[in-house]
């Protein structure tokens, strides 16, 4: 029983990571329909932000907490710049968007190599995020994964509140639903696109901060995650937040349970087969919502 609960928790924590890396994409891809292959590099930018701040701020805990908003701003600014300089000129050309943003991802990876070097780097986890928390009996849960779970819940709650209750959220949803009508209602849709991209990319930066607690930071770390992020958004249903949340935790738990009895590679294969099967049955994803077509 203890083992099963432990594996379930591992699955939930994998789901939390998946959710964090996919949350930003659910805005830029799910809501706006932009295939941004450089999204993974915004995750990387967030992770390197922790590395840079640890060099400037001695305390690992303080630097990690400071890194959360700073990484949001750094990755958000990168995303807004990408949208302003390139993507807004390509809204009617999805294939070109894919190729251009892939090129940008390669440039950002090389930039990271030039600045931080090709080998991976490591950050220090603060003392309060090392070790385990006893739950019951022999079962303990690792503190850093609990932190990531909390961060994912906070990020989802924050994004939901922004989308539901703020003027900006209303504008984002309106532009998604009917761009022309939003424009003739006096809403500067170009600025809303940029802000949406800023928030979506900023969330990728926050995911990058969380990932520093689980492993080393490298120039290609984002590339390794981008497929998982797209899968969560597509399987959850493009344009819906709740679908992504459910799918992230389901896929995380499935991977964890299969991995326990087999290996990580087999677990990944099982997850991919499950996704292919699911999309054959329900190509539109778990939930559907009419979204703006930029094609």
């Amino acid at each position, binding site marked *: 029983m203890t083992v099963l609960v432990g594996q379930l928790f591992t699955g939930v924590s994998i789901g939390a990571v998946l959710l964090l890396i996919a949350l930003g994409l659910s805005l830029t891809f799910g809501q706006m329909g932009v295939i941004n292959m450089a999204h993974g590099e915004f995750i990387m930018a967030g992770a390197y932000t922790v590395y840079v701040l640890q060099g400037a701020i001695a305390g690992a805990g303080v630097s990690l907490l400071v890194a959360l908003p700073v990484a949001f701003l750094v990755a958000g600014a990168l995303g807004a710049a990408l949208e302003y300089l390139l993507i807004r000129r390509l809204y009617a050309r999805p294939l070109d968007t894919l190729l251009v943003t892939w090129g940008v991802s390669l440039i950002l990876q090389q930039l990271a190599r030039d600045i931080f070097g090709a080998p991976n780097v490591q950050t220090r986890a603060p003392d309060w995020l090392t070790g385990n928390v006893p739950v019951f009996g022999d079962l303990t849960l690792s503190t850093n994964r609990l932190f990531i779970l909390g961060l994912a819940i906070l990020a989802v709650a924050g994004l939901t509140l922004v989308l539901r209750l703020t*003027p900006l959220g*209303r504008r984002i949803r*309106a532009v998604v639903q009917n761009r022309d009508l939003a424009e*003739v209602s006096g809403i500067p849709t170009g600025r809303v696109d940029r802000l949406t991209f800023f928030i979506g990319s900023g969330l990728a930066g926050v995911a990058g901060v969380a990932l520093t607690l689980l492993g080393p930071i490298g120039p290609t770390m984002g590339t390794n995650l981008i497929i998982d992020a797209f899968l969560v958004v597509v399987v959850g249903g493009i344009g819906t937040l709740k679908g992504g949340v459910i799918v992230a935790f389901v896929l995380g738990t499935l991977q964890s349970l299969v991995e326990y009895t087999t290996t990580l590679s087999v677990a990944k294969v099982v997850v991919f087969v499950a996704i292919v099967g699911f999309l054959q049955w329900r190509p539109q994803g778990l939930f559907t919502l*009419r979204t703006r077509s930029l094609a």
Partner: protein
Amino acid sequence: MMLSIEDVAAGYGRTSVLHGVSVAVPDGRISALLGHNGAGKSTLLRTAIGLLRPRHGTVTFDGADVTRLAPHERVARGMGYVPQGQQCFPHLTTEENLRLVADTRRGGPAAMAEAMDLFPALGPLLARRAGLLSGGQRQQLAIARALITAPRLLLLDEPTEGIQPSVVAEIERAILEISRARGISFLLVEQHIGFAVRAADRYYVLESGRVTSQGAGGQAAEATVRAALAV
């Protein structure tokens, strides 16, 4: 002159729809734009508000050339637009549809209250998703939303299309009330010829992207317009 569209040519891709159209809306007056389906009426309104860039010609609003301005910039200057088809933001509630626009300007909440006074039927529907409203309710919401932008000119594209007669009367009453009480100018595209010509100070008949007939509106003009449209 509140709106002056001069020698405008516009279209979609390689298809030309408007061929040198000139239309004017005097201050505080109603101009009606009439014509059969496909004549280019909606294209002219889309060009006037800036959703479609003209290939030729100018759009002047209140003395300023707005031809190259984005739609939201035209709205900020006082141009309002209610597109064809009772368009709304279907996944937002009625209240969110209105508040969305009220957020964009000073005095928005007061303008929202005024718009609600004009269409009391929307009051009980504030919490309902706009996509669940009837056609007539959505059209009232669409006009209310446009009014919150505090327009001095409203471009109305077939406001009574596909709506039951009792609600049509309600919408026509609201248009006349807005025009008289608030001094808002209108460029009205309408299939309901009788109402449009009677309410208008000036009418234009559009055929195949060209103005083929124009004149002073009013009761006496109705027969002339019907003859021009062969209806």
